[in-house]
């Protein structure tokens, strides 16, 4: 093993797939993600996005933080930690969840994989070891950062079931949010039908030593449909269309917020559907009950369809022309819906009664000058794009 002390020579680490991605990254555009180098764009963001929506795409998930949680108290522990009822999550299934601090403010969201009766994998954006460890006091459970032990790969797009079958992994019976295992070169490949694109897709989990052979097998199997390696720019566009939120893009984790007013509760991020008050005590329960009963949440989280075709990144929102009522957190011109879409924090009650209509103040940088646009916006349902193929089992052939 490389001398741990020499990390100053390479502050950012490379992932198990780096060799292949570096070769494909002809633009050489990289960005840090949780201490790793990840590609933002490899060749062309639009082509990469097109692969996600029309054929098949591969995205390197290795930097995602993964905590392995095991022990006889794991279910009780996770029930205390997170908002949803973990006892209802079957083995070999996944659910999307979130967790809060004492005040009922979000610390993070993520996916919880139940790999066995007492074995779980919690995947998220931020690091939480001290919180997870302190939450374990009084439970028979052990928690370990397993980020480096598992190489993750996201295979997304209408052709992905076909690609996997071609690669020798029959996923025709695998339902959304379920997990299946396949032998691969003497090891086990775990495939979950999950993703961050709102399209048909899978996430693949393998020991890091087999990352490159797996990559090669998938690229070969997908060559018929033009499978592409994609970067985070294309993925971000797809996730906004799918209406998914990202930590530190759409909300600030409560333990990171320097400014106290930046924190958000599940009610304020439209995640209250997750809360299971009936399962017994969990972190933030008392505060959330109070928030529910007194309707004290100050914010709403909304999806906006904004007129025009200019992406409304970080636009300030108004009721009429002068009353500030919110901020856009994520925005894009959506190729698949052909509209300017946005996710936004909106001060209550303007999410239901903005008398003067909702307006977005957009600054479009055009040849050195900002063009200031006041654009009408409308609250719409999330996701912006939800093709039936994402849930069909067996998946259709595209």
């Amino acid at each position: 093993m490389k001398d741990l002390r020499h990390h100053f020579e390479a502050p950012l680490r490379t992932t198990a797939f780096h060799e292949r991605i570096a070769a494909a990254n002809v633009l050489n555009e990289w960005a840090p993600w949780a201490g790793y180098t990840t590609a933002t764009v490899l060749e062309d963001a639009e082509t990469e996005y097109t692969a996600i929506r029309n054929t098949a795409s591969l995205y390197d998930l290795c930097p995602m933080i993964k905590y392995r949680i095991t022990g006889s108290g794991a279910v009780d522990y996770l029930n205390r930690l997170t908002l949803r009822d973990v006892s209802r999550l079957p083995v070999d299934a996944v659910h999307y969840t979130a967790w809060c601090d004492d005040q009922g403010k979000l610390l993070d969201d993520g996916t919880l994989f139940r790999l066995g009766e007492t074995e779980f994998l919690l995947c998220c954006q931020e690091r939480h070891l001290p919180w997870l460890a302190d939450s374990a006091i009084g439970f028979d459970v052990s928690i370990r950062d397993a980020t480096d032990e598992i190489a993750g790969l996201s295979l997304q797009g209408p052709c992905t079931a076909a690609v996997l079958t071609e690669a020798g992994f029959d996923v025709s019976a695998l339902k959304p949010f379920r997990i299946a295992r396949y032998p691969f070169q003497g090891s086990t490949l775990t495939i979950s039908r999950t993703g961050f694109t709102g399209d048909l897709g899978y996430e693949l989990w393998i020991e890091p030593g087999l990352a490159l052979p797996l990559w090669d097998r998938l690229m070969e199997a997908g060559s018929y449909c033009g499978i592409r390696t994609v970067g985070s720019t294309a993925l971000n566009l797809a996730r906004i269309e799918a209406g998914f939120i990202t930590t530190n893009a759409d909300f600030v984790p409560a333990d990171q917020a320097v400014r106290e007013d930046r924190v958000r509760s599940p009610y304020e991020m439209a995640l209250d559907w997750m809360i299971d008050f009936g399962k017994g005590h969990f972190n933030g329960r008392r505060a959330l009950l109070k928030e529910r009963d007194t309707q004290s949440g100050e914010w709403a989280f909304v999806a906006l369809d904004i007129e025009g075709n200019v992406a409304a990144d970080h636009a300030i929102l108004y009721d009429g022309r002068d009353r500030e009522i919110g901020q856009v957190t994520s925005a894009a011109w959506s190729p698949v819906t052909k509209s300017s879409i946005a996710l936004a924090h909106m001060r209550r009650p303007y999410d239901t009664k903005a008398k003067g209509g909702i307006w977005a103040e957009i600054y479009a940088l055009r040849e050195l000058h900002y063009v200031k646009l006041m654009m009408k916006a409308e609250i719409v349902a999330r996701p912006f794009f939800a093709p039936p193929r994402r849930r069909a089992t067996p998946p259709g052939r595209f």
Partner: protein
Amino acid sequence: MQSFDAIVIGGGTNGMACATRLTKGGKRVLLLDAADRPGGAAIGGDGASGASQMPLAHLLMMLDPRVHAGMDLDQHGFSYAATDLATTALSATGDHLVLEGPAGASLSGSLSDTDRDAWATLRKRLLTYAEALVPFRALTPPRIARKAGNDMLGLAKIGLGLRRLGRDEFREFLRLFLINVADVLEDDLTDERLRGVLAFDAVLGSWLGPRSPNSLLVYLNRLAGEAAGTRAALALPKGGMGTVADAMARSAAASGVTLQSGARVERILIEDDRATGVVLTTGETYRAPTIVSAAGPKQTLLELVGARHLDTGFVRHTRNIRSRGGAAKLHIALTARPDFRGADLATRLVIAPDINAVETAFNATKYGEVPERPVMEIVIPTAHEGAGADDPHLLSAIVQFAPHDPRDGLDKARKQMLANTLGVLEDHAPGIGGLISESELLMPQDIEARYGMAGGNWHHGELSVEQMLFLRPFADVAQYSTPIAGLWLASAGSHPGGGISGAAGWNAAERILSRVAA
């Protein structure tokens, strides 16, 4: 089975005060105590049955007047053997200094007039500040948030009291508020004995040295106490400290409290996020809509309730309650009256020759070590009960500082602590070693084991600025209530701390009565 409105866990002074006050407020109360008899740190008789029967506390100085009067203690067998106890600052050469009256109102012994005058001035100032803080003791700590239901009138009165000190004194109060006691003593006084005994008193029972900032405030808190109706005085109950506990127990019973001894609570029942009862180690279950714990906050929340019923941040706060005990307790049975170079044994004897002696004794405990030359406060109960020169005597001493988590293990540390303590005693009372028939030294860990005080700290949590008032034991639970409906805290770990006072229990009861519908 009899039904109760409230169950109080822990039959120490706070538990008994709380149970009695609740009963007088119309509640049917069950008081559960783990020991064979109630009293907690005040348990014990006059020590007639030997050194090991002596109580942890050996002087009264904080007994809350509301508790004293409200429990009619005088009607239940409580009286003073000595009030306004003097203190002798022992000198190894016999040149003792005696502080007479409350907080050394007058000084006898060789002392310069300058120091006498300076002490008179300083004493007056400190007592004035302490007086301004007295009303806080009987108050539920205010909350910092606006519209939090504070007693604004009461607070305004206290604030006004401070401003009434006058401009210069108010300024001086703000300067001295968080200062270390050593600087104040060195600025004003020159006599080593006087500075030593005052520095000792300031940090008695705390985990601070006299050079630690904030130590003056801890001293003011001590001066805000009272005994036998006199501010900052020391007193000794007739028949030993155990009579306080016995009188309180009789009073509680007389007022209608159902007292059950030998009942160790294993856990508090939580149902649907409400405290609904307690389960004893025997498996017996008692139910009541109000559960009050006079066990320490750490023990109550982490052991009796359990982390899983609490939020993680709250658990962190609970674990962060600092509760390092810095005092050991020495009990000695003597075959005859000891001689501290002529000192009056019917006074409190303090061995703390100068500020540095106290500070140096504290240094060791920071690293889990035993100090070479501990400092101590000695009470000889038998001297107050008329024992003759050749009669057996008992000696009780609080010895500082002792490590709460000795580096070399408890047994070795205890042995070393005892040896070092006896060495210091021998220097001040030559020949005392030959009179010892029985001795017992309780290290903080022993005190924890025997009395359930976390870390062996008498206050169930250090009494330090960052754990005072609305920060005691920590902000979330400073108003005696907890996040679990129906569960209340009433130990010395809550405001205003311990020291055979009953104030925390009384305050908690008042709060409960005002918040829980009849």
